[in-house]
């Protein structure tokens, strides 16, 4: 049997200390390890293996597979971020050290020491490792969500385009049918053709408008905030400040009195409550309150009326106005004068209603 015909080989599991990996075919794994842990089938290797630690191989080259495994394991522990460091230099030093450890593990250099260092670091910084891991997870989720939203948008755009196309087709068909109908009903062929041309022209204009719309849509997408763009390219740009949208100033409420206020009280100040029975009865009457009537509109009005004009001295103030008053009287007495001259019939007051 050729090797190709065999079931997919499964690499040996990673071993602590970055031990060897070997590929074993699926049926062999079943055969050897189905009854529990057993010794490694490779001659000279005495390690005890378990079935559940075997898994499918991703890479053809077993060495690559092993290196990826190790790198994953190291990266999960040494997951510090650039923000954690004071300067770029520090961060680079850290990366260098991590790479040293990884390299040692992969190439089995100073295996004992390196493994010890690794374990020590893991034990010491367990909490921070967890924290950074959750942060990374969150970022990944956000990224995925962004991508999803972008896909959705693209789908909507495609749908809209499709709808437009279908509409166009339907219109063309309808136009043709219309022209045929007209011809069939015996209309003038020339005018029908002209009409048809007009319709076609209109269609063309519509198409131009649609193309324009499409272009605008694409422009919109291009100028969309950078957060959305991150979804499609694999480059996540950090440190971009989110743009805050400037909302328009809310419109000022309408002032029905054009800047006049009625708060310039001289003679009284409104109280919260009045003991007068009239007010109290109105306040407790459900029939009145149900419509939204507030008794304070009565009290404020009553008090305003009680003092509106207390300081107005009609006699004095009218003398100053006497002349204007006389002009006004002329208008009013005119009617009477006209009557006096016996011309009343000529004064027509039209029915305004």
């Amino acid at each position, binding site marked *: 049997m050729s090797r190709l015909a065999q079931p997919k080989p499964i690499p040996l599991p990673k071993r602590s200390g970055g031990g060897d990996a070997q590929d074993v075919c699926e049926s062999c794994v079943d055969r050897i390890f189905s009854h529990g842990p057993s010794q490694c089938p490779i001659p000279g290797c005495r390690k005890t293996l378990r079935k559940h630690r075997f898994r499918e191989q991703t890479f053809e080259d077993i060495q690559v597979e092993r290196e990826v495994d190790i790198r994953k394991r190291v990266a999960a522990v040494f997951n510090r971020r650039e923000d954690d460091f004071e300067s770029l230099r520090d961060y680079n030093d850290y990366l260098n050290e991590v790479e040293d450890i990884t390299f040692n593990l992969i190439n089995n250099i100073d295996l004992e020491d390196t493994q010890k260092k690794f374990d020590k670091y893991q034990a010491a910084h367990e909490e921070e490792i967890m924290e950074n891991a959750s942060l990374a997870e969150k970022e990944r989720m956000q990224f995925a969500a962004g991508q999803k939203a972008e896909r959705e948008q693209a789908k909507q755009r495609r749908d809209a385009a499709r709808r437009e196309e279908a509409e166009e087709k339907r219109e063309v068909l309808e136009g043709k049918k219309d022209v045929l109908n007209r011809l069939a009903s015996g209309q003038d062929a020339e005018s029908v053709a002209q009409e048809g041309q007009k319709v076609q022209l209109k269609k063309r204009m519509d198409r131009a408008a649609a193309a324009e719309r499409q272009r605008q849509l694409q422009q919109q997408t291009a100028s969309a905030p950078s957060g959305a763009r991150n979804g499609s390219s694999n480059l996540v740009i950090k440190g971009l400040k989110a743009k805050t949208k400037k909302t328009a100033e809310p419109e000022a409420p309408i002032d029905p009195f054009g800047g006049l206020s009625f708060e310039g009280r001289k003679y009284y100040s409104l109280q919260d409550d*009045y003991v007068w029975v009239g007010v109290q009865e109105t306040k407790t009457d459900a029939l009145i309150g149900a419509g939204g009537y507030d008794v304070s509109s009565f009290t404020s009005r009553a008090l305003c009326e009680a003092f509106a*004009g207390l300081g107005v001295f009609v006699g004095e103030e009218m003398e100053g106005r006497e002349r204007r008053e006389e002009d006004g009287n002329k208008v009013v007495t005119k009617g009477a004068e006209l009557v*006096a001259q016996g011309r009343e019939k000529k004064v027509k007051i039209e029915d305004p209603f």
Partner: protein
Amino acid sequence: MTHALSEDDIYRTSTQYRLWSFSPESLSALRKKTHDLALERAQRYTGNDEPVEFLTQEEELRLVQRYCGQIRTTSDHFKWPVNVKATAVQYLTRFYLTNSTLTYPPKEIYKTVLFLACKTEATHMTLSEYARRISTEAEVVLAPEYKVMQALRFTLDVRQPFRGLKGALMELLNLAEGMVGGEELQAQMLDVPPPPQGTKTQWKHPGAGKVGAEQLHDRIQAAYSAARNLLDAPALLTDVYLLYTPSQILLAALHLADEPLTSFYLSTKLPTSSLTWPKILATVSACADMLASFSPPQVLTKDERNALEGKLERCRDPSTRDLVQAFAAMRQDGSGEEGEGVRKRRKLEREKSQKEGEDLFGPSLQRPKANGAGG
């Protein structure tokens, strides 16, 4: 940039202040002028054959006053709100400022005025319902309506003291409870001397001992109802509405009802050192004097009224004798003859523009007329 209006400024915006407030001199001058004009006109329609005795200005005034009383009794009979009564009376008074009873006898005007007041004061009823109630014809009510509106200068708002009086009552009661100026004012209020003999209030000082909160309460209520009565009869049958503001009228009524209480109330409103203080006091007491000077027997009795109206019948203006017919004729005029004229003119214009429109380059350009629609 808000401009705060005081209560006085608010009152100055009203048409009652702008058009229907007078100094005593200008009021009597205006009435004299109206009367003289009516007499002058009367010279023309009577001719010189026989001497006719005309109503004097005094008689005219008393006749109008009698019909103000008539409006009051009618309104009371139907139990309409007091606002209707006050408004109608003011309409009638205002109407006869610029019109003479010789031209329009009040007997024909007062029904219209009352109907108009029902409308403006939101006491709605149909014209036929109203006519049925006061047992008259609908046309009689409608005929002088335009004349009345014109004489009222199309201002229908009448500021009245009734709601304001309730406001004062409200505030007085709160004062008595110590809710306005605190305990100090309350104590002062309890010490206000009792009303002297001869005032209108029904309240009597309990005699021995100090006045308690309970009695103070009664005193305020009694003063209110006395003032309310004063606002009903004398205030409506004298010229106070034309000479004073509603606020002054109601305080004058309170002043007549319980003078010490009102003085105390006013003193809580303004510092006695303020410049307007003596003026306000003087105005209120002048108004109170006017209210007090009124006595019911001044109003014409039915016989006197009949005598006066008989006299009026002989000297009245014949051209306004049949208002109903004039009204009907005017309506006819408005819809018939004139409508036809307008139609004819429009037709001519239409034809002209059509003719011009057929020219090759359209009608000729025209300068806008100098005296267009302005005349």
